[in-house]
């Protein structure tokens, strides 16, 4: 009761401060003193940096008070400024959701074409302040923990399932946990020491490392039915949690489909699947209202069509998660390529990176 009252009082104080700071947010003043002092936005300060494998870096992050924690398997949007431009990417914390000091870890693998991952790999240092979003995502364990669980990952897709493993062991979970990870070689396995230590300390944790490029692992090559049977013969009775590159995801889906247990596979894509749209049924014209441009509908996403027409609409993720590209569709019908959902109302906000026109469409770009 007192805590509630105090919070109320603090909020009243905040409202007064904001009325004094209007039209600017109070954060626009506080951040000038120190970027971590903000009250409204979620930010996190990097408190330590480890380079675990040759191309990945692990950051320990101390979030500010706005951070509401995360559930193992969820991801968080991380924003950094690179040459003056804010870039955001999604990363999954790899630590236990039950950490006592409220800090969490992100492991970032530097991809050749990954601007943010390469920048973080080269420039992350103690004291760096990151922009964060609340944790989100449905790729999580049920609150009633399963008796047995199979966690499968590949490459840097290890982070959400690593978090699940650490959370379960932190909770003193007694059920069997099989952790199957795919890497090129042993040197490419993130958290190798931590994994071995966990497996040694907990009888119920079995660690299986599969190497695709060299011999010497517990398993060899890409995901197969044999791998699945070797890892978890009871796969049909419980859920499997899978996160990895598109190849692994597709391979595992095929195996589970063939075995008639597709419903047992829970997945998290961390690389966008290529968006395929049937160009056959593309009809009508796309009108870009603000720039007074019209082009025949090519069947591709509105973002791509706008770019093909020489326009430069804002965009971020290009996979429908960051809402940077959100624009107002003034008229016509569009389809969300992710779920086939139709947007038929005029004056509706749509994400142009994942929307394709169905017939004539006018959009305010």
């Amino acid at each position: 009761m007192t805590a509630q009252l105090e919070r109320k009082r603090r909020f009243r104080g905040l409202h007064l401060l904001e009325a004094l700071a209007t039209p600017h947010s109070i954060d626009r003043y506080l951040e000038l003193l120190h970027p971590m002092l903000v009250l409204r936005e979620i930010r996190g300060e990097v408190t330590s940096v480890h380079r675990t494998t040759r191309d990945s870096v692990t950051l320990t992050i101390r979030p500010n008070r706005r951070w509401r924690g995360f559930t193992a398997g969820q991801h968080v949007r991380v924003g950094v400024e690179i040459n003056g431009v804010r870039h955001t990417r999604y990363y999954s914390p790899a630590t236990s959701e039950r950490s006592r000091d409220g800090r969490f870890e992100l492991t970032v693998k530097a991809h050749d074409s990954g601007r943010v991952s390469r920048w973080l790999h080269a420039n992350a240092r103690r004291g760096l302040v990151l922009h964060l979003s609340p944790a989100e995502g449905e790729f999580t364990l049920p609150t009633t923990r399963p008796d047995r669980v199979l966690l499968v990952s590949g490459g840097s897709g290890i982070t959400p399932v690593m978090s699940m493993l650490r959370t379960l062991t932190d909770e003193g979970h007694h059920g069997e946990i099989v952790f199957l990870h795919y890497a090129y070689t042993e040197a490419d396995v993130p958290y190798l020491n931590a994994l071995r230590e966990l497996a040694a300390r907990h009888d119920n944790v079995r660690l299986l490392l599969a190497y695709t490029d060299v011999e010497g692992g517990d398993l060899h090559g890409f995901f197969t039915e044999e791998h699945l049977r070797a890892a978890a013969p009871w796969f049909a009775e419980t859920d499997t949690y899978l996160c990895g590159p598109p190849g692994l995801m597709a391979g595992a889906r095929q195996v589970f489909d063939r075995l008639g247990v597709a419903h047992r596979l829970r997945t998290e894509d961390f690389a966008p699947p290529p968006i395929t749209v049937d160009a056959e049924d593309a009809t009508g014209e796309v009108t870009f209202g603000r720039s007074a441009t019209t082009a025949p509908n090519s069947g591709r996403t509105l973002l791509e069509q706008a770019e093909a027409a020489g326009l430069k609409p804002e965009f971020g993720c290009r996979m429908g998660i960051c809402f940077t590209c959100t624009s107002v569709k003034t008229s016509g019908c569009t389809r969300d390529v992710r779920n086939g959902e139709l947007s038929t109302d005029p004056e509706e906000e749509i994400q142009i990176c994942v929307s394709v026109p169905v017939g004539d469409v006018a959009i305010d770009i």
Partner: protein
Amino acid sequence: MTTKTPRLTPQQFEELGKDLDALRQRLLDDLGEEDRKYIYDVVKVQRALEVAGRGLLMASSFPPAWIAGTAALSLSKIIDNMEIGHNVMHGQYDWMRDPAMNSKMFEWDNVAPGENWKHSHNYIHHTYTNILGKDRDIGYGVLRMDEGQRWNPYYLGNPAYAFALMVFFEWGVMLHDLEVDNLRTGRKKWSETAGVRRRMWHKGLKQVLKDYVLFPALTGPQFVATATANATANLVRNIWAFSIIFCGHFPTGVESFTEDETKDETRGEWYFRQMLGSANISGSPLFHIMTGNLSHQIEHHLFPDIPARRYPQIAGEVRAICEKYGLPYNTGGLTKQLSSVAAKIVKLALPDRFWRKPSNPGTRNVKEGRALRVA
């Protein structure tokens, strides 16, 4: 009005468009960390001035604190509105993808709501710059600032209206978005202004509450002294912004255009109109910052969405391009440009025939004389 200036050939227009597009692309490619650092440095100075000003005014009954506080707050409001607000709301920093510096999210310390202003300014004024009947910034629907506006007795009050607009400039800018002139002629319906009016009400209320209730109340018995200081700071900003903005398009020599002339404009012709429809003010680097670099109105009108700190850097090149095509590059000191604007305000208050004889006798006579000789 356009008769004095050389019309370019279609090829020249195309070449002019290409020259300026190339310059624009070079600037875009070069945007980066330095521009981000610059705008954040300006923000830091502005916020420091604001906090210092508000702080000093906690002792507003002590005259030196009143003077220093009012001065700091005036500077803060000027920088907030001009180098930060005007430019950020133009989308000059949208490329940073920083919500705090995004044109869609930013609000300035001014009663005019950003959303309304952006429509009138970014779209109407910057697209239809100096086209009579389309650019509502020619006289703001109140003044007669161009011979092309037909005189009527209402305009006898031109200097008085201009003075009132100067004193209450932020309110003028706010009401401008209502398009009273269009409401009067029936081109726009009152009901269509519902959104605009709601935003005005909300923004105006918050601004008034801050400057005339909350901050004065925080100073207790010094309420009146603090409220007066805040009013003075708003007034100083009004006068300064009015002066700079009126020097942008109204000094002598700035061209206006007709709707016919500008039908089906090419890119080059659009650039041509922007250059001829704007005027610069010369001055020191600090002066330029205090004007929000609107002292480089020509460069601003060519590239309204490029960070304003770039305008002084390219001014030399733009001038050289003007010379290449024999186009005027209208610039002068603040006193020269302002007095030219003041003279125009007075002159246009009276019907044109009043000035015809005394002000333009030379040209008439020379022309007539020449005609006689030819004959």
